[in-house]
């Protein structure tokens, strides 16, 4: 039987803090780089280059950000899995995260790499930004609900 009280992060308070900082920084890297592509889809930011070029240039760093954010997220989750999993706001966050990730690696990627109309690009950028902001909001609101 899994006993959370023996979890390394519960035994060492500094380790919990370090993991949370890693979660926030890596989340900022991943979402921030996607936002740069979104800004380009909105015809803002580095218009000198294409959205496709920006996406390719940032794809690896974004992926590393996601891997670290999700790994540290699971580590935090493991400190009290029953409470986290039962919590409606955390469930909402997990659903939003899956939708945002799915959107990012399908429609968002395809539109950034292809040559779509400005209206399509704008809509995709707005949906992408809204989804990621919603993920952050649900992550913070979890602690308050």
């Amino acid at each position, binding site marked *: 039987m899994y006993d959370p009280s023996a979890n390394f992060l519960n035994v060492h308070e500094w380790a919990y*803090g370090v993991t949370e900082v890693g979660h*926030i920084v890596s989340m*900022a890297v991943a979402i921030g*780089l996607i936002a*740069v592509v979104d800004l380009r889809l909105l015809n803002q930011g*580095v218009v*000198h280059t294409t959205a496709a070029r920006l996406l390719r240039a*940032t794809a690896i*760093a974004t992926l590393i950000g996601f891997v670290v954010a999700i790994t540290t997220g699971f580590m935090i989750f493991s400190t009290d899995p029953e409470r986290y999993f039962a919590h409606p706001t955390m469930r909402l966050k997990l659903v939003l995260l899956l939708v945002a990730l799915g959107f990012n690696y399908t429609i968002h990627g395809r539109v950034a790499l292809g040559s779509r109309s400005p209206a399509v690009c704008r809509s995709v950028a707005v949906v992408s930004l809204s989804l990621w902001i919603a993920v952050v909001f649900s992550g913070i609101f979890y602690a308050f609900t």
Partner: protein
Amino acid sequence: MTLASVGRAIQDLRVFTAVRESAYVYPIVLSTHVACIAVFGGLIFLTNLRLLEWCLNDVPVPEMIERFRPWKQLGFVVMAGCGGLLAASKAAEYFVNPFFQIKMTLLGAIAVHGAYFRRSVYRPAGAAIPRGSAIAAAVSSLALWAAVVSMGRWIAYYDAP
């Protein structure tokens, strides 16, 4: 007059008391603060990757800096505005919190960083940016911002003696 008493006077102002006691306003302001870190942090991160010549090397640095500047300014205003609201609503605790004090010092260091590299790196198009200055500016910017975010999280872990 101590820091704590100044903080107490600030957080007792009606608007900050309302923010602190509201069930929704406080988490909304905090979420906006963190969402700004995520959305606008990418602009800082990508600029630094470019200064290190790790990506987009055909995009001129001054072009990227100029194009990102208004968005960075917008992000900073919203982020700092929300941060100021959060700090003011709990000023009595925050002003004496060593992690908050370190965070504010680091933000001061970021202002110094910008002024220091203004001529050599963060400048309009012109002569090539010295490679050494670009690397120094990028590495110190990444370290400073990572430290600011870390200290921000650590504020919540401090138990006053």
